C-alpha cells in the first residue's frame, strides 16, 4: 500500500536546489501519436484499419497484414503484469537519482505486450490498467496501475513524477475577483494544496464573493495586477520561489467583432489583461518555475492557462475576444517548450461560454465555474496537458478535427 506523502518541511535556504533533469525525450514521429493521446489522458494505440491488429510499439506497417493505415484509436487498457523488475542501476542521470525504479511487462488483453512503469501497489501476476502519461520530457510513457484504486495511490513516487498533483503544493491563482478564480481557490484547497495564494488587483476595493473567498482554508490574498508590470514583478519577487502551480484566471470577455468596435481601446484592454498579462506572468514567474522542477515533493509542476475554446476557431460574435484568446494560446505553446527543460507542464484548459455575467445572453449549455475548477484539479492530478471542459468545447474540438473550414463558416453564420 502506498505510504501517504509527508508534508514537506520548510526548505533550508542554504541547500542546493536540485537541477531538473529529464528522461530521454526523443521519439519517432509515429510514436508522437502516443504523446497526443497522453496529453489528453486517453489510452490510444495504433489499430490496423485493414485487419484490426492492435500494434505496439508504434509502427509504420502492420505486423500482420503490412497495411500502412495505422490510426491511433481508444482501446481497452486492461491487462496482466507478467513480470517485473526493480532497476537499481541506470545509465541515465534522470533515473539514477530516482533509483530504485520499477518497470514490468504487461500483456494487454487486446494483444500486445507493453513495457511500462509500475505503480507501487501493483504486483507481478496481478491485473492492471495501463495509462499513457507524459513524463518530465513531455513525451508519452505507459504506466501500469493496480486494477482498482488503492488508498493514497496518487502519492506513489513514480506516479507523482508524472502528475502535477496539488497535494502539498503551493498554488497561485492570479485573479480572485472572477467566479472561476474563486471556484478554483476552493477546489485547490480541498485538493490538499498547502497554500493557495490568490491575486487581487487593488485589494482594498471590495468585490463579490470576497467574504467567502477569505474563509477558504489556506487561502492568502495578495496584491497582484496583471496589467501592471511592477505589480507582477513585485509579487513574483516575494512569492515566486513558493509557487509550484500557477493558474492564470485573468479574463476579459466582451462581445463584438473587429469592425463594430470604434478605435482600439477595448482591444488594447483585452490584450493588456490577457496577452500581456500572460507575458508578464511568464517573464516574472517562468524562470523560477523552470529552475524548481525537481525540487522535492513540492517541486514546481504546472503553469495553467484558462483559454476560451474560441482560441482554436474564431467566434465572430465574440470576434475580438477570440483573437486575443488565440494570441494567448500561441504564447502558451511557446511557454510549453520554454518550461520543458524544467519538467514543468503547461496545462491548457479550453472551455465554451461560462455561467457568468459576461456570457449572459448566450444560450446554454454553459460551464459552471465550479465544474471548470473541478476539471482543472482533476487534470492536474492526472498530469494532463490539454483539457476540454463542457459540451461546447468538446463539440468545437470535434468539428475542428473533421473540417476546419466548415467550422469557420458555421461559427460565422
Amino acid at each position, binding site marked *: 500500500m502506498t505510504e501517504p506523502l509527508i508534508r514537506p518541511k520548510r526548505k533550508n535556504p542554504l541547500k542546493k536546489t536540485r537541477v531538473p533533469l529529464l528522461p530521454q525525450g526523443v521519439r519517432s514521429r509515429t510514436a508522437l501519436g502516443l504523446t497526443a493521446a497522453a496529453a489528453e489522458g486517453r489510452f490510444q494505440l495504433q489499430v490496423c484499419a485493414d485487419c484490426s491488429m492492435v500494434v505496439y510499439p508504434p509502427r509504420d506497417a502492420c505486423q500482420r497484414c503490412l497495411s500502412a493505415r495505422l490510426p491511433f484509436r481508444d482501446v481497452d487498457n486492461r491487462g496482466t503484469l507478467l*513480470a517485473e523488475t526493480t532497476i537499481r542501476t541506470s545509465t541515465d542521470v534522470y533515473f539514477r537519482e530516482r533509483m530504485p525504479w520499477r518497470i514490468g511487462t504487461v500483456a494487454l488483453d487486446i494483444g500486445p505486450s507493453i513495457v511500462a512503469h509500475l505503480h507501487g501497489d501493483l504486483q507481478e501476476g496481478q491485473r492492471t490498467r495501463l495509462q499513457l502519461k507524459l513524463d518530465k520530457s513531455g513525451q508519452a510513457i505507459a504506466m501500469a496501475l493496480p486494477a482498482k484504486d488503492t488508498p493514497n495511490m496518487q502519492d506513489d513516487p513514480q506516479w507523482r513524477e508524472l502528475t502535477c498533483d496539488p497535494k502539498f503544493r503551493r498554488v497561485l491563482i492570479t485573479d480572485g475577483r472572477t467566479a472561476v478564480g474563486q471556484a478554483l481557490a476552493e477546489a485547490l484547497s480541498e485538493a490538499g494544496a498547502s497554500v493557495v495564494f490568490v491575486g487581487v488587483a487593488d485589494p482594498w476595493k471590495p468585490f463579490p464573493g470576497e467574504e467567502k473567498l477569505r474563509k477558504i482554508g489556506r487561502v492568502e490574498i495578495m496584491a497582484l495586477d496583471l496589467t501592471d508590470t511592477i505589480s507582477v514583478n513585485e509579487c513574483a519577487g516575494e512569492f515566486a520561489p513558493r509557487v509550484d502551480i500557477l493558474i492564470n484566471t485573468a479574463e476579459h470577455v466582451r462581445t463584438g467583432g473587429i469592425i463594430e468596435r470604434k478605435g482600439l481601446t477595448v482591444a488594447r484592454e483585452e490584450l493588456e489583461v490577457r496577452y500581456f498579462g500572460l507575458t508578464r506572468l511568464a517573464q516574472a514567474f517562468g524562470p523560477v518555475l523552470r529552475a524548481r522542477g525537481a525540487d522535492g515533493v513540492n517541486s514546481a509542476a504546472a503553469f495553467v492557462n484558462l483559454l476560451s475554446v474560441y482560441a482554436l476557431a474564431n467566434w465572430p460574435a465574440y470576434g475580438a475576444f477570440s483573437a486575443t484568446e488565440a494570441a494567448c494560446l500561441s504564447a502558451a505553446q511557446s511557454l510549453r517548450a520554454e518550461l520543458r527543460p524544467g519538467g514543468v507542464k503547461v496545462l491548457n484548459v479550453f472551455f465554451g461560454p461560462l455561467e457568468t455575467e459576461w456570457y449572459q445572453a448566450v444560450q446554454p449549455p454553459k460551464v459552471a465555474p465550479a465544474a471548470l475548477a473541478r476539471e482543472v484539479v482533476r487534470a492536474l492530478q492526472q498530469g494532463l496537458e490539454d483539457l476540454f471542459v463542457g459540451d461546447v468545447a468538446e463539440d468545437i474540438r470535434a468539428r475542428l478535427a473533421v473540417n476546419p473550414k466548415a467550422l469557420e463558416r458555421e461559427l460565422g453564420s
Partner: protein
Amino acid sequence: MARQPYDGVFVAAPVTVPYRRYSTNTAHWWVGRAVREVIQKAGLKSADIDGLSLSSFTVGPDTAIGLTQHLGLSPRWLDHVPLGGASGVVALRRAARAVQCGDAEFVVCVAGDTNQVDSFRRMLSTFSRFAQDAVYPYGSGGPNASFALITRNYMKHYGATREDFGKICVAQRDNALKFPHALMKKPLTLDEYMSARAISDPIHLFDCVMPCAGAEAFLVCREDSARSLGLKAARLLATIERHNAFPQDPIQYRGGWALDIAEFYAMAGVGSDDVDFVQTYDDYPVICMMQMEDLGFCGKGEGPDFVRSHTLTADGSFPHNTSGGQLSVGQAGAAGGFLGLVETVRQLTGAAIGAPVPDAEIGLVSGFGMITYDRGLASGAALLAGERT
C-alpha cells in the same frame, strides 16, 4: 526444396585480439588488428583476401565498404552483418555459401568494437527505434532491465533459481581463469555470486557481462584451399538462423533455434549426444539455459534440472563456454557474437589457449542477439567438427 548441405566448408585461423575494458582506439583499429592476424596466421597476403564480412556497432559512420578502403582490401564479395550476438554464426553461414559457390576463395569474417567512456550509454539510447520509443524511457536500465523481465518470467514458470544461474556463471569463471585474454582474473564462488549487489532484480552483478573493446575473427574457405595452405581447420556440418521467431509469445521464453533444430541435427548427421562441447551465447545466464533447451539437450522447462545434473567446466560432463564466455572474458560489442565461434574453432583444431576440452571432435556454437524491444530477435547455431589434416 531441401536446404543444400554445407559440404566442404572449412573454418580456420581463429583470432582473438585481447580485450580491454576501455580503449582510446577506434573500432577500425581493432578490426584492422584482427584481420592482419588472420592473414598472418593463414599465411596469406592482403591481396588473397577476396571476401570480407564485418560486424561492428561502433565503426560508424563507416560500414563494411568503408573498411575495404581503410584496410586496403579489394574483395569481390562483401558483407556487413549488424546482428550483435548472432553475427558470428550468420557471418559464417553467408561466407560458407560464398566459398561453396566460388564467389570468393578466402573470406575473413571479423567483428570488432571499441569501448570508450560513455559510448555504451549512447549506444543504448539509440540502439533501435523501438528501444528509443518504448524501452529506454523506462528507467534506462539497458539490457539488464530487459533481460531481468525475461529472467523473472522464466524463473516463475520453470522453477529456475538464482543458484542455477550462479552455477553457470561460476563454471564459466573457472574456465576463464585458464583463458589468458579473460578480463575477469579472480575466482568466483557461488557465495560471492549470490551475495553480489542487485542490478535489476533478479539480475545481479555477476549475471551481467562487462562491456569492453576487442575483436575476433576467423577465415572461411573451401576444403581444398585449406589443405593447400596446410591450415588446421574445423569442418562446418550444419548451421541455422532464424529471426523474430514466435512473435506471438507475450514474453520471451524460447528462441528461434526451436523452429529449426530437427533439420539442424539431420543436416549434420549427428545428434545432440554426439556434441562434445557447447558455446552458447551468454549475455545473461537465462539465455544459456534457454539454449540448452532449444538446442535439444533437454526439453523446454528442463533447463534448471539439466544444469543441476551436469558439471559445466571444460573438463565436465557438459563442457560449456570453455573460454569463460562473455560473462568472464568481457563483451566486446559485436565481437561477443564471434567469441563462441572462434573458441569452437580453437578447441576443434587443438589450438585451445585456455582450458582444453578433452578429445573434442564436435562442437556446437550458438548465437543470439538484438533485443530491439522486449526480446532477442536473432538466433543462429552451427555444428563444427575437428578436421585432422
